[in-house]
């Protein structure tokens, strides 16, 4: 009997696992029909009493919280009274700001901050196992829940919907070892994957050691996992530890923003598409139309400027060195490089000088007579270099110093 039951369960296990292309063994993320049926039965058996206990408010939890777990309550009460006194002072200061904010809010017509469609649900039970960080919601397929929907609280993300039953749903928390969420560190902008460890703490795995990561840095969702919208709070960095398997990698332990151990009410993001009011949609349509017209105008301007550039002559620099003769075997320029490569200016065509002197190009310098006191100029300290009659440098004519001329 023992062997029969054991063999049957081992065969059942073998059906549920599969080998990936990389050779790793993994569980099927999507349960088969038989497995799903068993889960459905277990859910149908266990969740009604759980729901009853949750709604009756007479369970062990309320008994524990209201009557037994009252440690440090007196000290907390004193601290709270001090806090109240401080907050009263701050309240007076903030009152005026609040009024101003209300006026601005009315001015902007900004009614809803959160643009995703959500559904509130109660957490009614868990898996009961340390190795399986899942919990159950009191909403299911009948309420519009589907697999892989993000589950959040006002504090931060909680997990994703793993399985959906008619009136309940199973949520895989972010501190489970099989979970995975794309996250980003707010300051250092380092991305990683968040998953749970054996102690039930979420940790970012697979990132290189980086001294910039410090405890206290905020962790946000990166938005690349197609489940959690970008920018939702995940938690703060608690500590950084070395990856035991890989030397150059670290694990960043994250203190979750949401209280994963004591969840009560959560929100399920039922639609990742932004939810806009009709006025906002109209504004966006107007904006899109304006952007389209603007883009068309810019395109026309670019086309006109290209046409103008083709028709106008190019600029040449007369002082540039002459272009080397094209080699017979030279590689022709690529088609895309024709316009980008600077055109070599042609050699300047010098005009004939009407009154050539010894500084004019093409005229051989006359041999100077033997230096005599009459004709030999004495160079002076700080004197200007010899110039021609137009005040130009030797060897340069007025034509050459003129502005570069356009060549067709």
């Amino acid at each position, binding site marked *: *009997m*023992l062997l029969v*039951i*054991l063999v049957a*369960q*081992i065969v*059942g*296990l073998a059906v*549920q*696992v599969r080998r990936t292309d990389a050779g790793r*063994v*993994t*569980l099927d993320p999507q349960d088969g029909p038989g*497995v799903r049926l*068993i*889960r459905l*039965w*277990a*859910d149908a*058996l*266990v969740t009604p*009493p*759980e729901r009853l*206990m*949750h709604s009756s408010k007479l*369970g*062990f*939890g309320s008994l*524990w919280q209201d009557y037994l777990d009252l440690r440090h309550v007196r000290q907390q009460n004193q601290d709270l009274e001090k806090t109240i006194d401080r907050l009263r002072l701050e309240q007076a200061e903030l009152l005026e700001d609040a009024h101003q904010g209300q006026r601005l809010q009315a001015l902007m017509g900004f009614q809803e901050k959160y643009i995703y469609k959500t559904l509130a649900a109660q*957490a*009614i*039970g*868990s*898996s*009961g*196992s*340390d*190795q*399986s960080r*899942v*919990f*159950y919601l009191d909403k299911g397929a009948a309420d519009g829940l589907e697999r892989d929907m993000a589950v959040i609280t006002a504090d931060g993300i909680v997990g994703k919907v*793993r399985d959906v039953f008619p009136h309940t749903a*199973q949520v*895989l928390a972010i501190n*489970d*070892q*099989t979970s995975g969420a794309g996250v980003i560190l707010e300051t250092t902008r380092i991305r990683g994957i968040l998953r749970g*460890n*054996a*102690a*039930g703490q979420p940790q970012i795995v697979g990132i290189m050691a980086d001294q910039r990561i410090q405890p206290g840095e905020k962790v946000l969702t990166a938005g690349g996992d197609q489940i959690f919208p970008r920018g939702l709070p995940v938690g703060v960095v608690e500590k950084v530890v070395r990856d035991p398997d890989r030397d150059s990698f670290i694990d960043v332990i994250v203190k979750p923003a949401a209280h994963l*151990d*004591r*969840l009560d009410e959560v929100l399920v993001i039922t639609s990742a598409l932004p939810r806009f009011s009709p006025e906002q949609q109209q504004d966006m349509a107007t904006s899109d139309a304006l952007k389209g017209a603007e883009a068309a105008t810019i395109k026309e301007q670019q086309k006109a400027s290209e046409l103008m550039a083709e028709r106008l002559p190019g600029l040449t620099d007369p002082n540039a060195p002459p272009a080397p003769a094209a080699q017979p075997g030279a590689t022709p320029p690529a088609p895309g490089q024709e316009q980008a490569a600077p055109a070599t200016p042609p050699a300047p065509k010098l005009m004939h000088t009407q009154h050539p002197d010894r500084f004019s190009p093409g005229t051989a310098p006359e041999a100077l007579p033997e230096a005599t006191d009459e004709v030999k100029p004495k160079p002076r300290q700080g004197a200007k270099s010899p110039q021609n009659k137009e005040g130009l440098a030797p060897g340069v004519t007025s034509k050459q110093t003129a502005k570069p001329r356009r060549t067709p």
Partner: protein
Amino acid sequence: MSVLGADFRRDLEIRRYPLLVYALVPLAALVLQAWLPRVLGRYAWFDLPLVITVYFALGRRSPIQGTIMGAAMGLFEDALSNHAIGVNGIAKTVVGFLAASVGVRIDVENHTIRLILNFLLSLLSSAIFVFIYRILLGLDLEWSWITELLKAVGNSIIALVLFPLLDRLQIRD
């Protein structure tokens, strides 16, 4: 510890319970196991289905019934988790069988024996779970023996309190 003949003990002390107890007590254990961790958070160091499996296996002294009870409880636990169905099932099947086999041979009324039995069987269940998950299936699983040790201690303490209460539910001639 008094060790007696197996047939003698079985004939002498087979316990019988109302049918409702067989149905409701395991169900209550499963529901509480799923619900209490929400209240106690990470301090939920116990495994009520395991305790109930051990109790009925010891009380009935039938390895077959202990095996079936363990398999049923383990499969339900698996069904409520995101694990493959059968991991806890196999672990608790073995535990149920062993508890019933031991119960035939020793005096299970003794509190110390109950305490030690629950502690050892809890550790055995954890070891089988890890063996199946990491060796048999080859899946990745981080493990904390401290937690399993605490869970074994928690199970023992709960058994110490719960077993006398459940003893009151048996049918007496």
